């Protein structure tokens, strides 16, 4: 193993997963406020779309644990988990989702368009659009003589966009420090991967660009930790890009309120039976790195941190309407 897994790291990853899960479930509950009896996407304290990532925590945490603030991460529309794992301030993240003045983007981006230059994190409403952004950041780092890397996240749906293939080719010909992470949750909204994608594993597409491609089955945090650690180390040392495909689970619909007519009810039940948080908890208990009591403490601490962020968001003011006219140009 290139990067050794230590107890503290494992606990930190579990803690971040708990924080993400608590955040997502809290957002889901608040999203429902004001949307009854008639479901109106524009109503309530959190208007618009919300795409939750509960179940996909390992893909975010197992990769981002290896990253520094100066490493660049670009992601797509379902990205709360990645933002949190990259260290984006939870209060400002929550406030942005509420559309508040204190949000990351002063309420101009919303949950799909989060930009944090301090943590070098961004996500994007156009699926596939952000792959080349990571390529450009990596190109800049190389030109600047830095050992920073860029990680481009996308779903299995995004992997059918032209920008995915253009980005892989550019990163490969220029041997750039980019790690492409495909979160395969099996669904591009309602369209299953088995019908959308000509081959069963997106990681095999790496061979078309002459770069390493690794498939990680079954949402396995510690395997992700290991593979990502190796890829990131190789990238930092000038060894070029890697494509990692992670089989992960989407516990909720495409968006909150999605009637999910397209998937069998028991699919989610089966996925939830393999909840990565329970699995990691058991693994750590087995290793003797965690007790039930310590786990409860982690849950409590994560809840408190999320509650504080949500309260900050609720209590923050909205932007003045005229602020809509600002920030078009620098």
């Amino acid at each position, binding site marked *: 193993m290139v990067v050794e897994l230590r107890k503290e790291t494992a606990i930190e990853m579990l803690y971040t997963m708990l924080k993400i899960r608590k955040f997502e479930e809290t957002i889901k509950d608040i999203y429902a406020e004001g949307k009854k009896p008639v479901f109106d996407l524009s109503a309530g304290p959190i208007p618009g779309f919300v795409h939750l990532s509960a179940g996909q925590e390992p893909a975010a945490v197992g990769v981002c644990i290896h990253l520094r603030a100066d490493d660049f991460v670009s992601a797509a529309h379902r990205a709360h988990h990645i933002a949190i794992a990259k260290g984006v301030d939870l209060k400002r993240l929550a406030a942005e989702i509420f559309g508040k003045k204190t949000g990351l983007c002063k309420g101009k981006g919303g949950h799909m368009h989060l930009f944090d230059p301090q943590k070098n994190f961004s996500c994007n409403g156009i699926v596939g659009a*952000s792959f080349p952004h990571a390529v450009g950041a990596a190109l800049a780092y190389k*030109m600047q003589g830095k050992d920073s890397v860029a990680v481009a996240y996308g779903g299995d749906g995004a992997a059918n966009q032209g920008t995915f293939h253009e980005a892989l080719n550019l990163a490969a*010909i220029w041997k750039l420090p980019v790690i492409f992470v495909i979160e395969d949750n099996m669904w591009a909204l309602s369209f299953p991967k088995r019908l959308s994608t000509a081959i069963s594993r997106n990681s095999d597409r790496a061979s078309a660009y002459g770069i390493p491609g690794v498939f990680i089955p079954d949402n396995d945090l510690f395997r992700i930790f290991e593979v990502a650690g190796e890829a990131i180390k190789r990238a930092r040392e000038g060894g070029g890009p890697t494509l990692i495909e992670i089989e992960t689970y989407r516990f909720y619909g495409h968006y909150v309120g999605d009637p999910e007519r397209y998937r069998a009810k028991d699919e989610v039940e089966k996925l939830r039976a393999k909840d990565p948080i329970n699995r990691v908890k058991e693994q750590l208990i087995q290793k003797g790195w965690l007790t039930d009591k310590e786990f409860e403490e982690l849950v409590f601490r994560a809840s408190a941190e999320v509650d504080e962020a949500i309260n900050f968001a609720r209590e923050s003011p909205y932007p003045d309407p005229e602020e809509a006219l600002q920030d078009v140009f620098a």
Partner: protein
Amino acid sequence: MARIAERRLRMYKAIAEAIDQEMERDNTIFVMGEDVGVYGGVFGITRGLYQKYGPEYVRDTPLSEAGVIGAAIGAAAVGMRPIVDLQFVDFIGVCFDQIFNQLAKIHYMSGGNVKLPVVITAAIGGGLSFAAHHSQVLYSIFAHVPGLKVVVPSNSYDAKGLMIQSIRDDNPVIYCIHKRLIGVPGMPCPETAITHVPEEPYTIPLGKASIKKEGEDVTIVAAALMVHRAIEAAEMLSREGIDAEIIDVRTLVPLDKDTIINSVKKTGRLLIVDEDYKSYGMTGEIAAIVAEEAWEYLDAPIRRLAVPDVPIPFSRPLEDYIIPSTEKIYKTVKEMIK
């Protein structure tokens, strides 16, 4: 009186010189695009730069416009100032999202947190029988989407000053170069496009139009090649005692409304000449601004000359028919004044 030695440069050389002088000053600036390296750019604007700065800073790219413009966005987000040559503006079709949803909007969507100082150069315009995929102007499309500055030089002097300013601007700039003004071999340009260019770096602010000729009777607003046709038409008109004022907008975004409005207040007549498509374009926008802000000064209806809403045809007589000509400008002004 001592006469300053003229240093007439063709537009492509003026642009290459601007980029070169800026790259010397600031090592965060780099150029990338198809054929910008050894080839020196299809329109010559990177000529000599590869030899001076090497393949890292003057980077040839695959035919991968969405990837490359996306990469420019990522590089700019972490401190670089990329210049991307798109070659023909018509190629925006394959990288539309990166320009319109990403480059244009990220500064706003980030609440002003992220700055994207990216310059995209693109060749515009017809007159060379390149047909509908290599002859369009399309700058109005960029101007329509908030967040992009749009620069359109009509001569070498402006080209250099506007390029230096575009590179120094912290916003995305679409820098449009007319193929019939750029001055590369095989694409003749009017002599009036080849102007004196000072050797030292200088800037021209974005958002300041240029009055090419003062006049009392009619205001003609134009951009790029149409400026030169307006100048020719004005010479014909002056022989008949009609005194036209010609305004070169130089930048569509920001648009120098004041210069246009003040001119119309003086002349009472407005003709807008554009090589872009007529509907929903620059001519309509400027007409609307004047109608809103200087209606009471107008002595005649506003007139517009632009490409009728057809794709650019290949055959010479067809293409000549749809692009506004000197003759059409002359005739239209005569109709406005009789």
